Structure formats: C-alpha cells, structure tokens
C-alpha cells in the first residue's frame, strides 16, 4: 500500500519531468525551425537586392526611351511599375550643348524593403528634325546602394560629388593614355608584370595588347 507522501512524490517527479522536457524541447524546436527560415530569409534578401538593381536599370532604360520620344524638360516620376516592382525616375536638365541639345542628369532608383539601388548618368537630348525619335546619347552610368532620394537636390548634389571623384580619376587615366605613345604605354604596363599576382602574369601580355589597341588616341 502506498501512502499519500509517496503518491505526492511521484506526482511531483512527473510534473518536474514534463516541465523539464518542455523547457528543453521547445527552445530546441524553435532554434531548429529558425534554421530553415533564416536561410530562406537570406535568399530572399539577396533576391530583393538583385531585383532593385534590375528594376533601377530598367528605369534608366525607360528614361532614355522617354528622351528619345522627345519628352523634354524636368521630369520626376515615382512608383513607375515594371512587373511587380516599381522604380522612380528623375530627368534633371543641367545645361545646353553646342547644337542646342539639352543636357540632363538621368537618375533612376528602386527600393524594395530595406534595399536601395540608384543609378546616375548623363544624357544629351538633341532636337528633333523634324520629328522623333530624337538622338539621345547617354554616358558614364554610375551606381550606388546608398538610400539616395533622387528627386531631392541635396541627395543629387552628394551623388554628383561622389560620382565626380570617380570621374576625376577617369580624367587622369585618360590623360595618361593620351599622353603616352602606344609603345610607351605598353612598355610601362608590361613593367608592372613583376608586381602582379602569379595567376595574372601568364596572360598579362595579352591584356596589355588589348589595352594598347584600345588606348585613347586623339
């Protein structure tokens, strides 16, 4: 015959076991379930990143198409849909060229959740003679993942400055190419071969040959 004290002991042990079991298993289950979802989240975050880039590029192509379609002057378009995503587009006149063509900053950006992608380029829109499509020349596309608002002058100015730094370096490299003769240019580049990683050295002559054949010449 078992007395009350033993029954209470047994009930106590049972309760402790159940609570202990639950206290261990539930967190383990939760952690294991997070494992799958965290991987899925990582994949989706990366996918959103790529999607902002693809959408912003499509936005800049749409901007060029508008200019070729002879839509002139300042334009600031937001929430332009492509598929299920949206982009913003700003065409900001900056001045005139020597054939009265309008010069623009072409800015396109896309945002999906916390991911941003902005593109900034220059575009020249000539005048239709007599009718569109109009000659449009775009160049020096520049990209950033900083969360710039492309319709705000302050953000455009800081993008302009960041991009300007790269363009300054571009002027230097062009200056270097222009001032060197082809042979001088390839000799100086070949001389760097000794300082290159081993994986690049075997093909460096072919690379320098391509650089030389496409060297800036005025």
């Amino acid at each position, binding site marked *: *015959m078992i007395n009350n004290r033993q029954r209470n002991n047994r009930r106590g042990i049972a309760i402790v076991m159940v609570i202990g079991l639950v206290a261990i298993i539930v967190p383990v289950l939760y952690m294991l379930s997070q494992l799958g979802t965290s991987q899925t989240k990582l994949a989706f975050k990366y996918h959103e990143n790529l999607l902002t*880039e693809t959408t912003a590029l499509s936005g800049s192509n749409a901007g060029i198409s508008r200019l070729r379609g002879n839509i002139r002057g300042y334009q600031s378009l937001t929430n332009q849909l492509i598929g299920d995503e949206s982009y913003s587009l700003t065409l900001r006149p900056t001045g005139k060229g020597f054939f009265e063509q309008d010069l623009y900053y072409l800015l396109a950006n896309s945002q999906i959740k916390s991911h941003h992608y902005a593109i900034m380029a220059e575009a020249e829109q000539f005048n239709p003679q007599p009718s569109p499509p109009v000659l449009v020349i775009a160049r020096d596309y520049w990209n950033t993942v900083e969360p710039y608002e492309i319709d705000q002058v302050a953000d455009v100015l800081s993008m302009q400055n960041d991009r300007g730094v790269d363009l300054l370096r571009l002027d230097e490299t062009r200056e270097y190419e222009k001032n060197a003769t082809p042979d001088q240019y390839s000799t100086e580049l070949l001389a760097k071969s000794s300082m*290159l990683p081993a*994986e690049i050295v075997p*093909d460096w002559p072919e*690379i320098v040959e391509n*650089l030389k054949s496409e060297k800036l010449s005025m």
Partner: protein
Amino acid sequence: MYRHYKRKSDRFGVTLVEIIVASAILAFIGGIVGHWFFLQREYQGRIFAISDAQQTIRQASWRMMQELRTARSVLFPRINADKSIRSDSKVVFKSFAGDVICYYYLASEKEIRRCKIPNGPGVPTADSEPVARNVDQLAFTASDEGNRIIDIFMEVKGTFGLESVYLINE
C-alpha cells in the same frame, strides 16, 4: 533477529529483474533516438553546407557584379578568333574610373581574390581580404563581340552559382 527487516509488502526497492527489463527498454529506446539524432546531425551538416555555399556565392557575386556593372570594357577573357566563347578562371576589366581591375581564382586556397592595377603610374595592389572562400570552381566566360558581357559560373560544395553582367558604360 530479523525483526528489523520489513515484510516484503512494506519494502520499497527495485528487484534485479526490474532493472534488467528497464535497462533493456532504455537501451532500445536510446538506440532509436541516438540513431535518429545521428541521422539528423549528418543531415544538418549537409544543410548547413548548402546554405553556407549559397551565402558564399551570393556575397561573391554581388561584390563582383557591382564593379562590373559600371565597367567600361572586359579586357580578358575575350571571345576566340573563331568567335567562339572563351572561359578563364580570372576576369580583367577597365573600371568606371579607367583603372584595370582583376578578379582571379586561387586554386590552392580555393579563394577568389581582387587586384587593382593603376592605368597610369603606380604599383598593382591586391586586396588583403579575399572576395570569397571555399570556392570549388570559378569560371568567367566572354561571349559578346563588343566585350560587354561576362558570365560568372561558380560551384561551392555542389551548389551552383550562375550570374551574368552587362557592362553599361563604354
């Protein structure tokens, strides 16, 4: 003399038979659970390997794509003389600012590395940190006669990464 032993029905304890039976049951259950845990552990290792591989591919691709996107032209590899595509374990291109950038595969370390060669005076500098680690295969393929598209094919532990970049500048 034996009064201090309680009668059988009052004694509280476990007999040898009960212990043997209980341990047999426990061993059986323990074996099943242990095997299950081993299987899951091995399965978990494979899952972690795949997800780490995916993460490696993502980070490496994104980094290279951002720089290739605004580059001006691919210098190496280029399509063959007979216009067929050409692949190599490195890509060399002229960046937005006009410098020469190279991403190459270090087979011994299974790493992707980056090196910048100034298009002008100055010495080449290799990045101290690799772009990606534990990469089993890397191939850059040129397929465009204008030298403005480069395909990236990566394999990390049986997981395949495929990326392509169109260079928007000239």
